[in-house]
């Protein structure tokens, strides 16, 4: 591992990518296309997201020989797709409605969950197993988690993807999505709690 946290294997990939090796690029697309779509969707909306991501992949391919590794490869790619979506948004001169703000706060953030003095009214559910490895062995639960990630409001979905799936820093996420630090933190917290409630429900009922 060097200071960028890259393994030698990843460095080999980067060397191949910089000379525009098709097989390496295909792997890169396979690995990040869905996440790139999540970023674009949150900025420009569903209808234009695919188009923006296609253009971003072309830009990334063209710019790879000049990639200087000042940030990690994925941060660099997410920044490119974020910027292209923002540029496109300005050209379209329309605003994409942000449904995230209106979301009703059920579950852990609802006032009904706590007594007036702030203590638990309805305590957290008991889980049969609590370790990520054991939880993930349950196929039906994985299915429920996947389903709930796909149904998150788009900006929450993008923030959650960048932070908890792709391990991007909060500062990078603000930059990629063009969202303030306080907003990113609120959206991330809501997404995590929604996901946790999915597991609560599964533990209690065996269903999504």
């Amino acid at each position: 591992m060097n200071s960028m946290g890259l393994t030698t294997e990843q460095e080999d990939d980067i060397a191949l990518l910089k000379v525009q090796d098709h097989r390496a690029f295909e792997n890169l697309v396979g690995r990040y296309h869905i996440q790139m779509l999540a970023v674009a969707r949150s900025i420009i909306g569903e209808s234009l997201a695919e188009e923006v991501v296609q253009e971003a992949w072309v830009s990334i391919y063209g710019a790879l020989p000049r990639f200087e590794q000042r940030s990690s490869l994925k941060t660099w790619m997410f920044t490119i797709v974020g910027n292209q979506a923002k540029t496109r948004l300005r050209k379209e001169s329309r605003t994409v409605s942000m449904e995230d703000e209106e979301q009703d706060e059920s579950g852990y953030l609802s006032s009904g969950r706590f007594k007036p003095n702030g203590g638990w009214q309805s305590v957290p559910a008991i889980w049969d197993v609590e370790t990520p490895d054991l939880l993930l062995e349950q196929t039906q639960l994985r299915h429920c988690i996947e389903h709930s990630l796909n149904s998150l409001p788009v900006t929450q979905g993008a923030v959650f993807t960048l932070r908890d799936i792709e391990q991007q820093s909060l500062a990078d996420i603000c930059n990629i999505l063009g969202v303030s630090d306080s907003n990113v933190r609120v959206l991330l917290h809501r997404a995590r709690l929604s996901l946790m409630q999915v597991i609560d429900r599964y533990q209690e009922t065996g269903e999504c």
Partner: protein
Amino acid sequence: MLKCSEVVEQASDFVDENLPWYSSLRIKMHLLMCVHCRRFLRHFSATIDLAEPAGRRQATATEIERVMKHIDDIDSDI
């Protein structure tokens, strides 16, 4: 004394180490005394840890092909 509802509100900032040290300390003090918030935070952390393995999705062959088609078009223009 910190309220349970406040522990829940600050849970993300707590696990991301985004809180001033005294706020973090208040949560730790609360956790020493509150079994429900301990369980809440255990589950909350497990949820975050399983996000990556459970949430990562590979693009389909069709999706990859569509991108590579554009790349091939560009390469043949040069």
